[in-house]
């Protein structure tokens, strides 16, 4: 389970705004007044309609996008320092494998950049590929793998250097439903084995509920957090968890939170958002 409320957060997002300058001088507010604490070992999902800034928020945490206002700290460091310290493992919607590298060489890439020696790289790549159950495919080239397998390689690569935080941007959005559910179990198993903190962007409610310790519900224009739902389904979760009444209740709760956020219209609901988060509790 997620750490208790008094644990020191590993990620602290305080008052973050992100405004993109568009063409012809137009400005888009992608994120507005984002406050969020993430505890070590937590599995937090960001969910919301397209354009709610969930991917931008993920990139702000990972120091791939600079906030216009506010700050992100990771273990008391700036996000930039955390990136330089290789605290982040990134997984995107596309596997982003390098065509010219074999499966194992893709997994070794971050280790090469970190300057790890050859024997260590080989050992880690083997362990990681076994972790994602691709131990028999180390010498294959990416084009020889299916989409789901490629994404598992991407996960192995992201974990290879033991980052403190795994940032996943709709990693299974391009997969069919069956593969996606299998990948969800895979990610849960890996999360439990490694104890990494995971921030997971998705637009699938069942996925968010099934995986997460907490689901952060966002709404669009401007992107903001409208609700944080604690997911108190017992761990370890499995197929059976998807059939419990509590699972359906939580799905309904997230769905209603999404609907209340609207995405279309006004900002009427915003003031409550911060309070809900602070309480971190759910009715």
């Amino acid at each position, binding site marked *: 389970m997620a750490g208790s409320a008094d644990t020191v957060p590993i990620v602290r997002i305080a008052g973050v705004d992100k405004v993109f300058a568009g063409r012809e001088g137009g400005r888009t507010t992608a994120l507005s007044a984002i406050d969020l604490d993430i505890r070590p070992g937590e599995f937090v999902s960001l969910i919301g309609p397209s354009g709610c800034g969930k991917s931008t928020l993920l990139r702000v945490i990972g120091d*791939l996008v600079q906030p216009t206002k506010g700050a992100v700290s990771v273990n008391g460091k700036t996000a930039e320092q955390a990136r*330089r310290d290789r605290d982040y*493992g990134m997984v995107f919607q*596309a596997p982003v494998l390098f065509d*010219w*590298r074999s499966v194992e060489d893709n997994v070794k890439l971050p280790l090469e950049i970190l300057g790890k020696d050859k024997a260590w790289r080989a050992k880690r790549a083997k362990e990681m590929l076994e972790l994602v159950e691709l131990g028999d495919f180390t010498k294959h080239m990416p*084009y*020889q793998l299916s*989409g*789901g397998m490629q994404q598992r390689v991407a996960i192995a690569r992201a974990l290879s250097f033991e980052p403190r935080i795994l940032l996943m941007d709709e990693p299974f959005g391009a997969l069919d439903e069956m593969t996606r559910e299998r990948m969800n179990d895979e990610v849960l198993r890996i999360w439990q084995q490694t104890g990494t903190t995971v921030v997971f962007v998705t637009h699938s409610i069942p996925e968010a509920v099934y995986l997460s310790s907490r689901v952060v519900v966002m709404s669009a224009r401007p992107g903001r957090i409208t609700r944080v739902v604690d997911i108190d389904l017992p761990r370890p979760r499995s197929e059976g968890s998807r059939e419990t009444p509590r699972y359906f209740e939580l799905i309904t709760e997230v769905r209603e939170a999404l609907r209340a956020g609207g995405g279309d219209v006004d900002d009427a609901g915003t003031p409550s958002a911060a309070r809900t988060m602070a309480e971190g509790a759910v009715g």
Partner: protein
Amino acid sequence: MSAAAGVAGRPAAEPSGPGGAGRAARAVRDYAPAVLVAVGGLLVWEAVIRLANLNAFILPAPSAIIGALIANWNGERFPLWQSALNTIIEAVGGFLIGTTAGVVVAFLAARWGGMRAMLLPLAIAANAIPIIAFAPLFNTWFGLLNPLSKMMMAAVLSFFPVMANVTRGLSGVDPSQIELMRSYAATQSTILRKVRIPNALPYFFTALKLASTLSLIGAIVAEYFGGQGSVLGRMIVQSASALKFDITWAAVSLAAIAGIVFYLVIALIERIAIPWHASSRSEG
């Protein structure tokens, strides 16, 4: 095939097929139709010339061309083999100069966006003009009898496709790959080495194949406008004006063979250098 994405838990294809014997059999199967058509075409050509009793001035029969090739292989007036060698040296020299310059400029252009903005429109404009029209001028600039004048023609023709393609390969990297590298706090030079250069390799080889053909065209056309005697371009011009068209055809055939071999050598290097690229995969 893209169907690969659908099947999870199973490789979409076996790693690059069986070894020697299977590969040879496949090569025969792949190329047999083309070889048959080529041989058939030559036979029809020969038959038509003989049956229609066509004048050799218009079109000599393949047998006559081969005969002229053998007779003049080390000929006094038309030394075809030595000429072919000299022309190939010019073409390959120009190819190397032009390719090197193209790669260097492409790296500079990829490194400095401002330079790219300045150079690329110029390169496109330069590519649109018939550079070959400059051949007589090149002869003046670099010396009519100096092989360098032919090399430079070949070099200029090779330069543009290499520069344009490699620039595109170095800068046209998937933005997610750059984001991923940034998340590892990789330096620009690491990104260049591990992402941009491998990404540019397929573009580079495409350009090399273009440049191989262009460099030979450049060398031969520059030779048409005068220069040292024993080169294919001079052989073609002189034999034609002496009405020895069978020798003209023999020289043209040598040029054609040189072009094809040059191209194939590069295609072979490409297969060895970037076996991961779609163009090199035997499964297609």
